[in-house]
């Protein structure tokens, strides 16, 4: 049965390639990227082998801990690991629970991320090439560590699943997970800054981590090399006990999901026509009203911007509040996030898009409505953050430039998204799916889509960015004026062109787009 599950996952992966060439391209790109990580870890490990035993140990424990922590947290962040093998799909088959657990854990490792983790883990053994016994211990430790990654990510997903099904929770969960992660970088930066040398604190951190499940398996080789046999035994016990507890918790959670149907809250109500009453009764107005309603009610939309209010946090942690010029970049960054939020709007509609096709809605009206909705939310937000950032940085002289740059980026990103969402359609979470669930084998497609979008928006806003940098640096009036003129000019130009081009794509390929989305479900 375990073999069957593995084969299923592999088949899903391969079938993804058959569907589109882009999937293959994305996969190859991420595989190359993954290989480079393995290579870096291997080279790093060989480099480490020239250090004293305790330093090698400390580096490996800290590095390994980060990897395990990543595996545990990333599934909660909606990207990365996909829930291809949702246990509920196996509900009707009488599969032994133990087989299902082992099968799902192993299947979770099939893919680029799993292969990279396993190979990187094993290659850390290279750090101990001069001590055969430690080398063996390192391999054992790596296997245990990777097992912790696989089981842990599954356990956390399964244990959180009932919570995740609740709409309210979904809305705050992103924030709960994302904020600590966003702060992690700056915090580490602070630590590096505060403590004069890494060597001073690394052994202490490693000493603590080595006794937690995160670091225990990676500590094994170092313990063996230094002859701390009792400690080595202790780390194995910590690892194995953690694995056992996780399997127990996962098994229990699995039983719960398998026997209980997904719970629905009480039927939701909303009085009257809402946004449909507030916007003009044109087709564009109707689409905008519908989109605004979705921004409000559909957790997929809420999730895509839920972290925006918290985005200032890392900026502030890094540079403090006063005289922190990096805060001036806050509004442009959020403008990009907001504008890009409609880059998968069509895919979010899924086959409900038939209503637009059957009604003969012009593509341009469809595009424009979605843009109006996102600007209704995005413009006030961006202006507010621009003013806030300028105020916090105490750089009122830059306000006009910041506003010009931010609004320009917002318009450019919205315009590019209008084309992208029709030109590059990739599977997203289906309507009503959890925020944390991922469509089958779509991770690479999403990655490619986001990358294309980022590159296009970066290129189109490059002139504005250059002028903005000059304006910030020199404070010259001409640079500020040019930032505003070029920002708004290119923004409006790209937006109009995006609506027209995207609209033509929808007009020409509407039925094909619909057919493609119908094939997903």
């Amino acid at each position, binding site marked *: 049965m375990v073999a069957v599950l593995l084969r299923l996952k592999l088949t899903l992966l391969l079938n993804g390639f058959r569907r589109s060439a882009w999937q293959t391209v994305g996969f190859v790109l991420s595989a190359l990227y993954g290989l480079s990580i393995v290579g870096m870890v291997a080279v790093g490990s060989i480099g480490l082998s020239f250090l004293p035993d305790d330093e090698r140990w400390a580096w490996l424990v800290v590095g390994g801990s980060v990897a395990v922590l990543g595996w545990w947290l990333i599934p909660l962040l909606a990207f990365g690991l996909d829930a291809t093998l949702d246990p509920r799909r196996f509900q009707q088959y009488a599969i032994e629970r133990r087989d299902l657990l082992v099968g799902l854990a192993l299947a979770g490792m099939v893919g680029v991320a799993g292969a990279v983790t396993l190979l990187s883990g094993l290659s850390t053994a290279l750090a101990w090439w001069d001590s055969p016994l430690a080398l063996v211990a390192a391999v054992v430790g790596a296997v245990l560590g990777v097992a912790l990654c696989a089981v842990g990510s599954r356990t956390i997903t399964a244990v959180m699943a009932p919570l995740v099904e609740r709409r309210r929770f979904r809305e705050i969960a992103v924030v709960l997970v994302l904020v600590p992660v966003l702060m992690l970088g700056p915090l580490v930066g602070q630590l590096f800054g505060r403590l004069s040398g890494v060597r001073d604190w690394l052994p202490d951190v490693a000493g603590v981590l080595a006794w937690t499940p995160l670091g225990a398996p990676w500590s094994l080789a170092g313990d063996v090399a230094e002859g701390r046999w009792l400690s080595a035994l202790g780390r194995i016990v910590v690892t194995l006990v953690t694995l056992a507890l996780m399997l127990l918790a996962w098994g229990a959670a699995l039983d719960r999901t398998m026997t209980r149907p997904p719970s629905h809250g009480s039927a939701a109500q909303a009085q009257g026509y809402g946004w449909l009453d507030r916007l003009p009764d*044109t087709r564009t107005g109707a689409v905008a009203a*519908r989109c605004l309603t979705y921004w409000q*009610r559909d957790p997929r939309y809420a999730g895509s911007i839920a972290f925006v209010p918290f985005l200032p946090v890392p900026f502030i942690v890094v540079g403090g509040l006063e005289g922190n010029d990096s805060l001036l970049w806050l509004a442009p960054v959020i403008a990009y996030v907001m504008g890009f939020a409609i880059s998968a709007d069509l895919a979010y509609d899924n086959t409900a898009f038939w*209503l637009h*096709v*059957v009604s*003969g809605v012009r593509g341009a009206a469809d595009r424009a409505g979605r843009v109006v909705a996102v600007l209704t939310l995005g413009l006030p937000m961006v202006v507010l953050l621009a003013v806030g950032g300028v105020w916090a940085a105490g750089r009122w002289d830059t306000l006009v430039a910041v506003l010009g740059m931010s609004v320009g980026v917002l318009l450019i990103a919205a315009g590019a998204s209008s084309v992208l969402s029709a030109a590059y359609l990739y599977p997203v979470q289906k*309507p009503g799916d959890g925020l944390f669930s991922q469509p089958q084998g779509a991770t690479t497609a999403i990655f490619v889509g986001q990358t294309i979008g980022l590159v296009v928006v970066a290129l189109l806003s490059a002139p504005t960015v250059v002028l903005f940098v000059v304006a910030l640096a020199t404070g010259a009036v001409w640079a500020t004026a040019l930032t505003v003129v070029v920002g708004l000019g290119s923004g409006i130009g790209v937006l109009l062109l995006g609506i027209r081009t995207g609209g033509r794509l929808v007009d020409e390929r509407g039925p*094909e787009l619909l057919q493609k989305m119908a094939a997903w*479900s």
Partner: protein
Amino acid sequence: MSTPDVPRAASGPVPPTYAVSPLTEQPLDHRAAISIRNLSKSFGGKLAVGGVSLDIPAGSFYGIVGPNGAGKTTTLSMATGLLRPDLGRVSVHGIDVWRDPAAAKKQLGVLPDGLRLFDRLTGAQLIAYAGELRGLDRETVRARTYDLLATLGLADDADTLVVDYSAGMTKKVALASALIHAPRVIVLDEPFESVDPVSAAGIRELLTGFVASGGTVVVSSHVMDLVQRMCSHVAVVARGLLLASGTVDDVRAGESLEDRFVQLVGGAQVTEGLSWLQSS
């Protein structure tokens, strides 16, 4: 246009009444509510619809019957502008669906099967949304939404999100969205599936009234009994081919529609039985 080859169905007995329809070579009938010529579609090399030609007279209540996978949904999707045909033409009241989609779509009200709805809207919002997408002004949309909700028995659930509707209510709200712009031709794919008998009777009455007032209704179904009682005309499709069409009485030729259908399609060969399934 040269005479196209009519593709052969993949396998199975060649139905006795099947022949290349003489309609295939005729031009689109501009008096018909829907005129279909040689409509074909295949998915990844697999033939779904192979050269269907059909005239649906204005003012008829037209049933399209066929087993699962016969190509009913594919044919109706192509006729309503939701799926681009590989080959063939369709017109609605003389307007070519694929050359002038905007004008043709104005004539059509469509209830597709198996596609999602914008179900985060309330029932009232969804119907109103459909109306505004059709370009109706606000007063008209509001008045008609109110009427439709009342007629279809959804008034009490107007403010409930469609995602929380039952399957039957979902069908009804989709039907309302298809009717709001007062189309001349209504095309419904499996409108009675998972609808309770009381609601089904209500829908039937509404459709019959629409036909009586001069409109045209096309429904697909695999419930023969329903089609025989409700429809004036019927077309039988199987394996992507049109096997028979005409008035219900012509097609059934004195037998029950169900018996005639089984004859045409060539099923019902379960004489051997599954020996291991016997419980005694």
